[in-house]
């Protein structure tokens, strides 16, 4: 079963890190991504640009309503996602808990609809 893991982080925390710390975190993440790819459990992952680059769109009466910024103005913002294949919820939780940024922020784990109807 597929699970989409959404990683929410406080951008400030990364800005406060030294280049060496950031480098170490990046290397750790890359190694974990590589290991997950090899085991076939990682289907996709991307890191997003800062939430200040986001725009939010609503279509109302065929008119686009566009506003600046992310959907929810919260301290922690969506920062990256990874789509994984796991046997069950507990395995998905186990994988997400090893994701390096989970130590700093929050990861939302969403089961993906099995057969879209």
């Amino acid at each position, binding site marked *: 079963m597929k699970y989409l893991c959404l990683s929410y982080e406080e951008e400030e925390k990364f800005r406060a890190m030294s280049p060496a710390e950031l480098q170490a975190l990046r290397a750790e993440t890359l190694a974990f991504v590589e290991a997950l790819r090899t085991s076939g459990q990682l289907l996709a992952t991307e890191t997003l640009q800062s939430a200040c680059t986001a725009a939010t769109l609503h279509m109302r009466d065929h008119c686009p309503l566009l506003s600046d910024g992310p959907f929810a103005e919260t301290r922690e913002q969506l920062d990256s996602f990874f789509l994984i294949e796991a046997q*069950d*919820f*507990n395995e998905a*939780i186990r994988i997400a808990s090893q994701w390096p940024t989970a130590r700093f922020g929050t990861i939302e784990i969403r*089961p993906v609809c099995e057969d879209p109807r």
Partner: protein
Amino acid sequence: MTHAFQARLDQLYKAESRRVLATLIRLLGDFDLAEEALHEAFAAALAQWPKDGIPGNPRAWLVSTGRFKAIDQLRRKARFDVSYEDVAERLEAELATEEEEEHGIEDDRLRLIFTCCHPSLAPEAQLALTLREVCGLTTEEIASAFLIPTPTLAQRIVRAKAKIRDARIPYQVPEANQLPQRLQSVLHAIYLIFNEGYSASAGDNLIRHDLAAEAIRLAHLLCKLLPEPEAEGLLALLLLQDSRRAARVSADGDLILLEQQDRALWDQQQINEGANLVLRALASRRFGPYTLQAAIAAIHAEAASVETTDWPQIVGLYDALLELTPSPVIELNRAVAVAMRDGPEQGLLLIDALLARGALTDYHLSHAARADLYRRLGQKDEARAAYQRALALAQQGPEQRFLARRLAELDAG
């Protein structure tokens, strides 16, 4: 059917239905299907056993009958919806391993507990599901115990089961490295069930008491299945708190504080069992906050009076508790214990410091505690003001009556 047979069947249902259900959930992989199968199995027993006699191993008979009935059911459904065919086939293919049904049956109950208390379910859903599936209470019983409408509770259970199925929350006991955190979630659910029955003063007290008893039964079961120190600590805490049940409320439903309780009414058997569990949990050196709270309760339970209570040890236990789980409420309790050890002035200093940093300012018990300490110092005006503040904040009838009584005593004396 004879009366004796009916009684035997009732007894079997009581003793085995939850076990059989837990195993059927594992075998069938679905809560609703397992529940239906359980009822069909007992219906079959009711029809067959009076003629053929009760089988040697009724539990195995019930599990296996329930499983066949579920497959029949799926086959009937498959006539209208082919998607059931696969499930029925899979279940039938697994029948070869029927001997294994008995194997790990106790683990199934543990699987059921951990699944019902999975931290990805909302706490109120965990409580409802645990009471329904593990304890076997009806939806109506649970709803009336929590003072909520039955449809609301029923929906809570339906949603929780849907989440277990759709998110694929597995039916398993967590692995060793996950166990401490997952056990916390189970212990917390049991504690909340107990509190719901113990501290609530609204509604039907008799039914609410059932919740406390149910929580104790659950904690007993958990300790039997998984004898972890902190599980024993929780059981001890529940037993020790429950041991004072008969003494803590007067005939008119008024609260009686620890120092005024008739200690002869305390249940010695529960105290002994609780105190032994505390000692064992403490000796393991792998205990947590429930064990420490139980240790505090045990010291109270074993003291002959408030005066002869070992307050220095209680303060020490609160210190340890604060280190594990810092909380202003524990600080408040510690302040009261310090007042008993060192005098009311010392307690007041600590409570005032708490309030000064903005903690517990709207909590009636912090003002009630202050009031009591001023009362003991004979400072009536300060005591009166604090009782009035506490009274304005108190929510429950018995607590309001208690505070009003204290105020009246102050003015009279």
